[in-house]
């Protein structure tokens, strides 16, 4: 084996009644981002740079829940977070509570490269952004009318319930009018904003990198941090692989999901797909999540135990595929 490989995702937990044109839009975006990554890899850009490049693209497009198009807090504002990790020396950078930075993944990269720390948040992160001269905009820039509508529905559904098994009300006003009993993170699937975007890459030198970015949970408490900026939970890259997760943040954090894939490869000798399957099957209990992963030998894999995950993968031998469902 060998050669480069790349995978991207736009979130796990998809409404089974998602209109066809929305599915098409998603697949087009995933394809475009994959192609961006593939070109970069073909021109020998290192894995870490490819990850940042591709995640920036996913953040900038309002379709998925990150950057512009982020889910809204209970106060109707946007608080974004992201993390990036370079498998070579396991260097990492993360940010949370970002409100004006156009591309949080790039700020996370700067934390990794230009600060003595690994993780900066809220006003400290914003201040660092200004010092670094990154592109900033008003918080309103990130808010889309669609998400304003979603927030309203989430509040009506009295969502983010402590007991995720409480049946939800109000979901007949959304989706294609068909009531769906599926829930994710306490929200009916039809108004759940699949969280997070991510990218994992192994380059021609066998170096792995991973990056994840999100606006977080719709209607979340302000100050709530999820799995995306947490190294070992939402993002991990080491010598053997790169992983990015999406789904129910609590489950991903408790399961230290991204690290788990690497750990079973390192300590149990599992191959990439086996490791991904094991983690999804055995490490999620009642939690719902998905992940994408690449290995240093050029393999790519993904897995999810929930209803759909927006994803795409490509390898150097010409293989390319995007998908949403099983």
């Amino acid at each position, binding site marked *: 084996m060998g050669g480069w490989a790349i995978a991207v995702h736009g979130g796990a937990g998809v409404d089974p009644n998602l209109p066809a044109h929305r599915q098409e839009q998603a697949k087009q975006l995933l394809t475009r981002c994959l192609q961006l990554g593939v070109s970069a890899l073909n021109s020998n850009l290192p894995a870490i740079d490819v990850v940042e490049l591709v995640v920036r693209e996913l953040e900038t497009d309002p379709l998925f829940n990150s950057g512009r198009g982020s889910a809204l807090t209970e106060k109707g504002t946007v608080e974004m977070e992201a993390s990036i990790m370079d498998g070579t020396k396991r260097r990492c950078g993360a940010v*949370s509570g970002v409100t004006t930075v156009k591309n949080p993944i790039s700020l996370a990269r700067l934390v990794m490269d230009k600060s003595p720390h*690994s*993780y900066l*948040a809220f006003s400290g992160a*914003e201040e660092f952004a200004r010092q670094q001269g990154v592109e900033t905009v008003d918080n309103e820039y990130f808010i889309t009318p669609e998400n304003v509508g979603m927030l309203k529905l989430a509040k009506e559904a009295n969502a983010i*319930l*402590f007991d995720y098994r409480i049946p939800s009300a109000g979901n007949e006003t959304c989706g294609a009018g068909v009531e769906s009993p599926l829930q994710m993170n306490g929200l009916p699937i039809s108004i759940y904003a699949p969280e997070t975007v991510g990218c994992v890459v192994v380059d021609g030198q066998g170096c792995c990198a991973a990056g994840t970015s999100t606006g977080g*949970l719709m209607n979340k408490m*302000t100050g709530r941090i999820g799995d995306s900026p947490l190294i070992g939970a939402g993002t991990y890259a080491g010598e053997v692989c790169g992983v990015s997760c999406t789904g129910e943040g609590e489950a991903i954090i408790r399961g230290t999901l991204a690290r788990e894939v690497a750990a*079973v490869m390192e300590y149990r000798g599992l191959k990439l797909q086996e490791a991904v399957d094991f983690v999804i099957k055995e490490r999620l209990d009642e939690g719902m999540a998905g992940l994408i992963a690449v290995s240093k030998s050029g393999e790519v894999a993904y897995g999810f135990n929930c209803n759909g995950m927006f994803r795409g993968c490509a390898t150097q031998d010409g293989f390319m595929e995007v998908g949403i469902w099983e």
Partner: protein
Amino acid sequence: MGWAIALHGGAGDIPLSLPPERRRPREEALRRCLQIGVEALKSKMAPLDVVELVVRELENCPHFNAGRGSVLTNKGTIEMEASIMDGNTKKCGAVSGLTTVVNAISLARLVMEKTPHIYLAFDGAEEFAKEQGVETIDSSHFITAENIERLKQAQEANRVQVDYTQPIQKIDSKKETPIANGDSQLGTVGCVAVDSQGNLASATSTGGLVNKMVGRIGDTPVIGAGTYANELCAVSATGKGESIIRGTVARDVAALMEFKGLSLEEAARCVVEERTPKGTVGLVAVSAKGEISVSHNTTGMFRACASEDGYSEIAIWSFGLN
């Protein structure tokens, strides 16, 4: 089997020449906190409650870098963080950027039990604290003269300082001065406990890094880095946050036990000796079987531990090892 408890007050380049007046108050505090934890376990308190109780005590003690006695940011302010994890359910809670909450670990516990989230930070966390009616106090309560001096020194040295046990000294001191190379690390308090049924829990709390950037988050509130507990073991780490995060230290101890069949001690040593750079990490851990491990690749780590079979230790350095 049987209960066991281990707690720490930070790992770092604690010099063997640490004068008694700096050593004794900490040893006394460790002794007192150990006693509290042991009594609690003996009276069958659940390990999750025990670790919270002990860490609250450590936070209240001004000699350690958590709660009162927290080190200061580069703006001279306080930003505290903590996390707690229950081994049975793997439920966890974490907080960061606290400025007025007297016991960060208790707020972390409330996040775990009273919200659908795991981790709240900064303004959102402070707001939640008010809603919950937890004890809050003016931020100045946490600031000690010693830490003001430490910050001043660090800023003069223009370096982010992790080791705060260094006596207040001139920068040009010729004594062994870990500050000089900026590699000294210390920070954080933590506690892990297991009862005779094998229920495990872990809790960690800190003020962070001296002279840290405002908004800097370390390993302490990151589940899998500074804190972890499952059905096999409970771990609380301390040292250089950035290294602990990259090394997913607390999780790795458990992962080595689970996937490679290592014993608690072997797993802890592997992580500390082989998977993290020297001088960066210390940890305390207990296993479901009631074993204890105290491992550090730093010069020292303030810690205390005890188990049901009568074993008990309060120490700073480790002799005859490495």
